């Protein structure tokens, strides 16, 4: 278990810049992006027609950066994560766009190439740790298997690495716990094991799909703390998928807000949360109880997310938006808003770049 550290220990600044806009500004520079997603489209064939769960999503990620992918149900955030990993099963498939990882195109690539990357250079952490862990296998079996699938090392060396990985995620008595089965761990511990597995082969990128949503607040706090440390130490880039803006506020460098399969706003965390440009982001922030006066009705977004099979033409949010006009019925592109922000809105709340 990590002991509480004093607050005077400052974190090593990432990217060599003390301002939080540092890494974000760099994403627009000439430095090669670790992950480059362009116009990704993932389609599901249903009885009622083709459903575009991911409908033209673009973002990029620098090495060591933390991107928060935020959205509610039906926004397509989880499917985006699965698409990057190549884990979308029929009736779903990627029908358009590109995903470039370390310069290499992943969409449509050979399954064997994907297999070599998964668990090795790119790892995924799921909401339910039992999606990673096999209930009938011991932890050491599963962890050693993960190492041996990608590297030729002796079993002893692999075991050493497992013990080190478990200790790093805060599991005490690692050698003994390695011999146990998943059901002998509590929920929070299982998620820690899943994180340890993800980190085993020192990936360059981790995609985390709501890993702390089902956990208690105190356990969530611990895991967020550990994730922060671990990605900082190893320089791992992180895509953190969640519906909880508060978690992103504390963890991420940049945030992309998704709605109905599209990115509607993107930018540095501070900018987006303090001065949201898109009306949906504004609506989300306003409906959080902490941002409302106690005892007064909460500010709410009218209506419901539309069914992905019956999206209104143009802006998907327009039926719920107070500022919608006739212009919103036309398709809306993602437009830059200053050097590091983008917004998909004809009447954004912020028109000039922030200083």
């Amino acid at each position: 278990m990590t002991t509480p550290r004093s607050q005077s220990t400052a974190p090593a600044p990432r990217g060599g810049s003390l301002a939080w806009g540092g890494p974000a500004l760099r994403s627009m520079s000439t430095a090669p992006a670790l992950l480059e997603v362009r116009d990704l489209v993932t389609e599901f064939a249903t009885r009622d027609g083709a459903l575009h769960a991911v409908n033209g999503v673009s973002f990029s990620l620098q090495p060591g950066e933390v991107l928060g992918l935020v959205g509610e149900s039906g926004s397509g955030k989880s499917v985006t994560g699965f698409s990057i990993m190549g884990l979308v099963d029929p009736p779903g498939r990627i029908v358009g766009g590109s995903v470039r990882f370390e310069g290499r195109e992943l969409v449509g690539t050979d399954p064997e190439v994907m297999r070599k990357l998964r668990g090795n250079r790119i790892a995924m952490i799921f909401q339910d740790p039992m999606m990673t862990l096999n209930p009938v296998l011991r932890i050491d079996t599963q962890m050693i298997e993960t190492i041996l699938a990608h590297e030729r090392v002796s079993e002893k060396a692999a075991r050493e690495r497992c013990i080190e990985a478990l200790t790093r995620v805060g599991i005490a008595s690692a050698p003994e716990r390695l011999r146990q089965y998943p059901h002998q761990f509590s929920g929070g511990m299982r998620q820690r094991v899943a994180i340890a597995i993800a980190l085993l082969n020192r990936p360059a990128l981790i995609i985390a799909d709501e890993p702390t949503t089902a956990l208690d607040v105190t356990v969530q706090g611990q895991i967020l703390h550990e994730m922060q440390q671990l990605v900082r130490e190893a320089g791992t880039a992180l895509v953190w998928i969640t519906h909880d803006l508060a978690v992103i506020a504390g963890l991420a460098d940049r945030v992309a807000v998704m709605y109905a399969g599209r990115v509607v706003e993107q930018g540095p965390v501070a900018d987006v949360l303090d001065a949201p440009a898109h009306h949906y982001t504004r609506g989300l922030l306003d409906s959080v109880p902490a941002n409302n006066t106690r005892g007064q009705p909460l500010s709410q977004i009218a209506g419901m997310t539309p069914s992905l099979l019956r999206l209104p033409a143009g802006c998907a949010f327009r039926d719920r938006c107070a500022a919608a006009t006739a212009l919103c019925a036309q398709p809306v592109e993602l437009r830059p808003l200053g050097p590091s922000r983008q917004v998909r809105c004809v009447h954004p709340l912020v028109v000039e770049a922030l200083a």
Partner: protein
Amino acid sequence: MSAVPQTAILVEESPWRRFVSQYAASKLALFGLALLALVLLLAVFAPWIAPQNPYDLGKLDLMDARLPPGSSSAFGSFHYLLGTDGQGRDMWSAILYGLRVSLTVGVTSGVIALTLGAALGILAAYVGGRFEQVLMRIVDIQLGFPAILVALVLIATLGKGVDKVIIALVTVQWAYYARTARSAALVERHKEYMEAARGLGLSSARIVLRHLLPNTLPPLIVVGTVQVAHAIALEATLSFLGLGLPTTEPSLGLLIANGYEFLLSGKYWISVYPGIALLATILAINLVGDQLRDVLNPRLAR
């Protein structure tokens, strides 16, 4: 992936229409359904379709015995579509009536076993405690015996007759329904809507009949269709062995048995055609049951 759909659901179709379109997704299942419908129609309308009443001994002519398919009677007045058996019975008519008997016995015993087994199983899951333990041990013991053995012993004790056969079949089948019903009911029992029903102050009878029972039906329906097929096969086996139904109301099994002695002398039609009819019936029921199981599986739905 996400737990609860928050987006607006497309509400256009009723559950029935959804069920129908899901069922129809499999061509094989549709074929099975068509075949089953055909078999049922033939069985129900047998007295009107059959050219001859095969049990009216007065109409039989020994001169026409063992004629191959497509031949005519001795005096040319009657056309035997599928030939005749050892007593001069028209095979086609005999098969139609045989289907009728087989299906009646199979379905009747299935329905009685379902009602009895499901009632006991659901009650066991709801009441729990000693009653459940005792019942489930009885079920386990019963299921430990091979069906055919139990049926043989019962028939030997009770004697021949349609009602005795149905009793034997019910005895063999009820345990399977009881176990399925109890498992399904146990799963439903712990769901929140059952708690909500209790919290609303509804009576136990109402909760079991209106909330528990409708939600445990899907697996029972699936088991039911397949069990009817088993029952028909089991009854055919009993009849083949000479037990079970009397010769005055031959089922397909008895027809197969009657023709058994002629198989090696080349008069295949007396056994084979009833065999094909039996096979088609069981196959149709199994195909329908398979698709029902997939469609009604709550995990695959939604």
